């Protein structure tokens, strides 16, 4: 009679799961840092609200990533179409846009649905692109310049300030993107580790994602970093297909 196969102690599995959860912290910390920067930018520029939008997994849309606003809990996660919104226009062109009075100008690109969903009336609006080198990685928005009506539009020095903050926000967005990719890799690594424990079910070797990541595991650190963008793309597609 063969000896029974020993199983991994449940305490080890708990540690693995705890490590997995803690490895998500850097991304969450960066997101919170970005939120703080947006809050400070809004105050410095003198707007009532502000936010950052990034490309959504749903193609041709941007989504609110962070927001500093009385309605921020409603805003985060909402989507706007790239074609058919001022934020999308700025994302597509890489050029900022300032609207002096939306009600008066009836700017055709303005996507009014967000105002309806969160219960805000946008009057003055400033949107600046967030650049990653020569590529637009997102947009920063500033809504309703503070002051008494008739509303004063955002001024040149405020646009310059927004441009400056966009540089910092671009750095943080890049770090956040890398951090999210590393977190996903880490989760997969931990799952793979768990499957190699005694008594664990064998991984599905036919799963192409598992094969790709197992191959990446064997690469040196520098090559893994080079593959980070590709891994992130694969992870997003995998998620969409599920």
């Amino acid at each position, binding site marked *: 009679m063969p000896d029974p196969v020993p199983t991994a102690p449940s305490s080890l599995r708990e540690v693995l799961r705890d490590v997995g959860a803690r490895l998500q912290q850097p991304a969450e910390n960066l997101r919170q840092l970005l939120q703080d920067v947006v809050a400070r930018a809004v105050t410095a520029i003198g707007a009532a609200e502000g936010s950052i939008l990034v490309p959504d997994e749903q193609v041709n849309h941007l989504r609110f990533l962070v927001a500093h606003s009385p309605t921020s809990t409603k805003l985060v996660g909402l989507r706007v179409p*790239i074609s058919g919104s001022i934020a999308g226009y700025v994302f597509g062109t890489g*050029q900022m*846009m*300032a609207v002096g009075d939306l009600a008066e100008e009836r700017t*055709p690109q303005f996507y009014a649905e967000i105002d309806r969903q969160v219960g805000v009336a946008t009057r003055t609006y400033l949107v600046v692109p967030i*650049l990653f080198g*020569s590529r637009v990685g997102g947009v920063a928005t500033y809504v309703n310049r503070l002051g008494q009506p008739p509303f004063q539009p955002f001024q*040149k020095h405020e646009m310059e300030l927004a*441009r400056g903050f966009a540089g910092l926000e671009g750095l943080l967005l890049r770090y956040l993107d890398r951090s999210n990719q590393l977190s996903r890799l880490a989760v997969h690594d931990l799952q793979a580790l768990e499957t190699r424990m005694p008594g664990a079910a064998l991984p599905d070797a036919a799963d192409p994602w598992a094969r790709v990541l197992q191959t990446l595991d064997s690469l040196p650190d520098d090559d893994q970093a080079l593959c980070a963008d590709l891994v992130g793309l694969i992870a997003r597609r995998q998620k969409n297909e599920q």
Partner: protein
Amino acid sequence: MTNLDFDKLLHAPTLRDALVHATGKGVNVALLDTGIDETHPDLHGAVIQAVDVVSEPQGAYCREVNTSLLSPSELDPVGHGTACAGIIHAIAPEAKLISVRVIGASAAGTGQQFVRGLEWVLEPHDVRIHAANLSLGTLESRFAVPLRRLVDQAYFQGVILVAAGNNMGMPSYPAIFPSLIAVDNEAYSDPMSFEFRVGNVLELSAHGIYVRAPKAGGGYQLWTGTSFACPHITGLVARLLSINPALTPFQIKTLLHALRANRKGQEERKT
């Protein structure tokens, strides 16, 4: 009024006098942009030709457009070109405009389209193109060489190129090339005011904050950005060319320098 000698024009009172009466008559200006809604009341009769630059895998090509068959949203789905055309037309009402559409409905175009559009401007045509407004640019360095070649070609051909700098302060092509006139935006109480900043990559700054300009489909909108400062200078260039169509790019820059608002002793005109 026409063909005033350049040396005479350098005498500032003569220049200012001449400019008061200049309308851009006899000057043709190309706009590389999103198209022009020529049905807008402000632009009736101003647009004499329209060309689309189409991008395909094997390359970009130009095709003439019969604008009489198109609606305002088809003529300019974005509105950017119509606004720029309106600004030029307001400053040089008798200059004729040629639409060279290099940016599509998504407000983006390819570098290939841009290069091909500029090539088209510099090719011989029945109608001579004296100047081109480039309220666009690319950050991609792979287009730097072909754009530099074309900008220099324009310089030697005597076609005046006026280009908008990047709104985010990034080095953008072709605005960074010195053989054209590059424009940054500022707020001026007088929309015709501009400054010359010797030593800057963007040598001129013109009114580009909340500029009231025609909206495609009718009406007006306030526009902000270097895109809308650029046509202020293009309009002024058209007026200068109507005084003397043989003015070279170098001479035009010299005259702009003479007209600048930030001369010594000149009071501050910024808002």
